[in-house]
């Protein structure tokens, strides 16, 4: 798009020496207008490409199984009367789905809080305490950033089996915390290290001990980084399927696993899958739209993960 629209612009734009910017020829401005128009059309088409799949899911979730089997979701544009909340009503009567939604919350919230708290403690220690080999230990944690979760699946499954954590909420939560910590420590240590020394010294002179310093000065100042980390970890755990697939059982499975079991019979279960998937997306999307800035800065910092 840039290529074919660009060359006429460039040719027309090559000005005689000294031509001011405002005096460009009509032709060059025309060419620019055309290329601007092409860019707009291209971006609109791409935007539709990105929106249509999600809209398809939403509209599919608002139709009856009979309509779904008979025709495509786009038929609702000509027959809006097909729209119905029946599938959602059915879904909320489905005990497996509702309890798995609760399970998702029961897994996600503790896994997020624990990572933030434990990561902050360690991040602060790495940033402001003195102990032998501090920076080497920290580099060791950084090295763990890219360890694939796959490495731990079999060993931890056996470990949890032996100590009776297999299938429990705690097991799933602990696994998420373990693999969330390298990023948490990395992000928070770097952020805490930027806190001006004077602030900490002033608090120290007021007689604050290490724990008080941490709770009253470091944690509040670390707000932006903690928010980024919290959102990142929240979405990561909420959206996880693989870890829960292995470590949860039918009593502790989150929504992703509950829906996954229905995928095998995709065509027959679409009336459960479409609204279920949409419900599972609502919270992450709300978090995403509410905290875009923190999310983006988390993504930036996490580019190494």
């Amino acid at each position, binding site marked *: 798009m*840039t290529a074919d629209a660009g060359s006429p612009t*460039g040719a027309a734009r090559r000005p005689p020496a000294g031509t001011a910017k405002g005096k460009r020829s009509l032709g060059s401005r025309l060419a620019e207008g055309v290329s601007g128009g092409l860019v707009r059309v291209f971006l609109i088409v791409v935007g539709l490409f990105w929106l249509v799949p999600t809209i398809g899911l939403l509209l*599919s979730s608002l139709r009856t199984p009979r309509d779904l089997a008979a025709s495509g979701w786009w038929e609702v544009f000509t027959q809006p009367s097909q729209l119905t909340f029946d599938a959602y009503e059915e879904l909320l009567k489905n005990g497996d789905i509702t309890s798995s939604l609760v399970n998702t919350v029961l897994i996600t919230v503790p896994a997020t809080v624990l990572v933030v708290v434990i990561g902050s403690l360690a991040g602060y220690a790495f940033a402001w305490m003195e102990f032998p080999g501090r920076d080497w230990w920290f*580099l060791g944690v950084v090295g763990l950033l890219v360890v694939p979760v*796959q490495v731990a699946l079999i060993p931890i499954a056996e470990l949890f089996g032996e100590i009776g954590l297999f299938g429990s909420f705690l097991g799933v939560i602990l696994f998420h915390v373990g693999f969330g910590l390298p990023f948490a420590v990395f992000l928070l240590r770097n952020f805490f290290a930027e806190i001006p020394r004077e602030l900490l010294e002033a608090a120290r002179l007021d007689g604050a001990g290490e724990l008080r310093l941490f709770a009253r000065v470091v944690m509040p100042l670390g707000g932006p980084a903690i928010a980024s980390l919290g959102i990142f970890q929240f979405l990561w755990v909420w959206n996880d*399927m693989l870890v829960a697939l292995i470590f949860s059982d039918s009593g502790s499975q989150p929504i*992703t696993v509950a829906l996954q079991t229905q995928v095998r019979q995709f065509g027959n279960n679409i009336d459960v899958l479409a609204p279920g998937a949409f419900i599972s997306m609502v919270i992450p999307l709300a978090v995403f739209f509410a905290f875009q800035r923190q999310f983006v800065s988390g993504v930036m910092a996490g580019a190494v993960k």
Partner: protein
Amino acid sequence: MTSASATGASPAPAAPKSRKSVTGTRRTVAALFLLPAFVLLGALVVYPIGYSLVRSFYDQSGDGFAGFDNYQALFTDDGIRTALKNNVIWVVFAPTVATALGLVFAVLTERVRWGTAFKLVVFMPMAISMLAAGIIFRLVYDQDPDKGVANAVWVGVHDTFAQSSAFPKAHPGRESPLRPAGGGAFITKEPVRTGQVVTLPLVGVAPDQMPDDAKNAVAARPEDGRITGTAWQDFTRGKGVGKLGGVDASELGYAGMKIEAVKDGKVVASTTAAGDGTFTLPAAADGAQLRLPADNFKEPYNGLDWLGPSLVTPAIIGSYVWMWAGFAMVLIAAGLAGVPRELLEAARVDGANEWQVFRRVTVPLLAPVLAVVTVTLMINVLKIFDLVFIIAPGSSQDDANVLALELYRKGFSEDQPGVASAISVFLLLLVIPVMWFNIRRLRREVRR
């Protein structure tokens, strides 16, 4: 521990430490702050690495030492080899396509006022689970063009350029003057003569499938020096066949049916039936047999089998790009914001066109960002699991296999933990260069 002298304990005069503890911490306090993190990291991340490494050298029961047998399986087991091959395809294409798209989007959104809204739309899929994305794309890739939007669009484009046939299931009925001519075509049993009226009755087209311009069939009139006739649906609804081989008023003509006159294997004349099914052929067709070519009876084009064995991996990569192009775009846009505008403007004043500015100035300046984005996506793609697990239907999951999926199968449904451990160690080895790079980059920063 011994390395402490290099960083912490003994003050290095060249690099004064600015982050000395303000409280003069005792080591026990530091240990307490670090303990929870170290215990969890040790038990859940470090220990499994060691365990997997050891486990990968033992046989499936875990009792006997197996040497490199499990690693050998990586290259001999059919399932793993397919997974390996697909992983290479993934790692080569998914990150580069996502990064290239991200770059194009980042550059172009700078030129429109609603760039932020566009970025939001493209970035949004990053917030949802791969399971949800998988379900979304199962719907998109549905084979039936009446249900899957990908095939609906594809068939729409295809049919714009290639005429589809109108009578896929039409065939001669009882006592028909037509016989199959091979390849799906039908031909008259007898040669036709000028002045003769030919009947070409067929059956088998569902009423709602008839072309919109089909009218009630009319019996053709004989004409001197020409051949006339009717091609129609010899079937009266409710009564079955009206008059067998005769044109009944309630029966519909095969509007648009192609008819060829064939003499000695050569087409000497051809025509198309009108709305009422009538057609006329010139004298040249005298003594020829009339053939209804196979084009008339082709099955309608049904689109691509997106989730079939050959297309399933590219199709799933497409869904991955949908999820992650936004990630590339946001990081590249941040990099782009740091590019000095004067440089681009100077290149334009020097007579470079927009493509040249992009190719020679923007891209080289962004090279570090592009590298980080691509490497990040490569690590991510190496571990791809959910999308393949959800999108690939059971019938083509073997063809779509990737290492992480194969590890899951071997470890948790085929009871081969030795081989699964070897796969996990292999995955770990692949990310070690990145691990090393991260540590090196940070060591410089930490030492400041």
